[in-house]
């Protein structure tokens, strides 16, 4: 069985994660779109820390009989991987978009100069 102290510590950590994420959204430093996975992580970890019987059962499925809290680590790592992968796709999209923006800006600047020069000569 999971030691109580582990459950309590894990629950506190999950609640802290949720509070920090919520405050970041509220103060407009984090968009909901990018916060959803973090919120899901916090909720799942919170449920698994408090629902001790469930943690044991899930540990049983994976053949972990000695130390059920290992599941908390496994789930935590899984979600961190998901968040990182998600961010990799977000970064890729942002870099594509900033390329497009730079190109558009450079082309506009060139056209603007051209038209200004023509105007000046006339």
């Amino acid at each position, binding site marked *: 069985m999971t030691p109580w102290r582990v459950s309590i510590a894990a629950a506190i950590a999950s609640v802290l994660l949720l509070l920090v994420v919520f405050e970041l*959204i509220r103060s407009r430093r984090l968009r909901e779109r990018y916060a959803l996975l973090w919120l899901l992580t916090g909720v799942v970890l919170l449920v698994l820390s408090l629902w001790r019987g469930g943690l044991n059962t899930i540990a049983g499925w994976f053949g972990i009989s000695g130390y059920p809290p290992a599941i908390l680590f496994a789930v935590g790592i899984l979600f961190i991987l998901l968040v990182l992968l998600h961010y990799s796709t977000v970064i890729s999209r942002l870099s*594509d978009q900033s390329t497009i923006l730079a190109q558009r800006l450079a082309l506009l600047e060139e056209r603007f100069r051209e038209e200004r020069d023509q105007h000046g000569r006339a």
Partner: protein
Amino acid sequence: MTEVLESTSQVDARLRALKRVAIVPAFNEEQAVTRVIEELRGFDPGLEVVVIDDGSTDRTTEAARACGASVVRLPFSLGIGGAVQTGFRYAWEHGFDVAVRVDGDGQHDPAELGAILEPVLADEADIAVGSRFIGGDGYRSSRSRRIGIRLLAWIVSALTRQKVTDPTSGFQAANRLGIRLFAADYPHDYPEAEATVMVFKHRLRMTEVPVAMRARESGQSSITAVRSVYYMVKVVLAIFVALFRRKAVPLE
């Protein structure tokens, strides 16, 4: 009958005195956008039309320009929220007194604009929204979508302590105050419900007007069945966050 005619011409007179613009967000709507622009002209020839082409891959921009509309073409898709906000920024920076949003897919019938503009022209509201659900149910849709809209309506009504029947409607009119707010801050992905809460938080006056909407002429709704649960979770979260979030810095 005479009463109707009289009130129509009255709206025109008040409207004619104002600098007015129609914001038409369009994403791959080369078929529908032409008709929308023509119908807007039919409603009010003095209405400036600005199409926000949200990174379309078809000839939406060319079609709209051919009809004489101004077109702001975004270099990539910002989503409906970003596109609409671009339109309100345009309206703000060009000094328009009143702006209406009419979607480029043709589901908003410009003939209904008189009704939607009425509360704004009468200075009874800063933002007026066309609702499909006041009075008769002039809207055929899948059952799940109607349940979703009803749930959202209930949440938004409770939070804003005001009866909101159609929190996903983007068919709206705004005066200078409304333009200013939406130019400074407009929610992203599926923005209308969140925008309603935002309007309430900023203490602007919002009202709903019964309208009929048409079935989409072309293109696809941005909400597919697979995504609807994800959509609901996100919108409900966004609505609650909007209630607690810091206010946007208003534009000068």
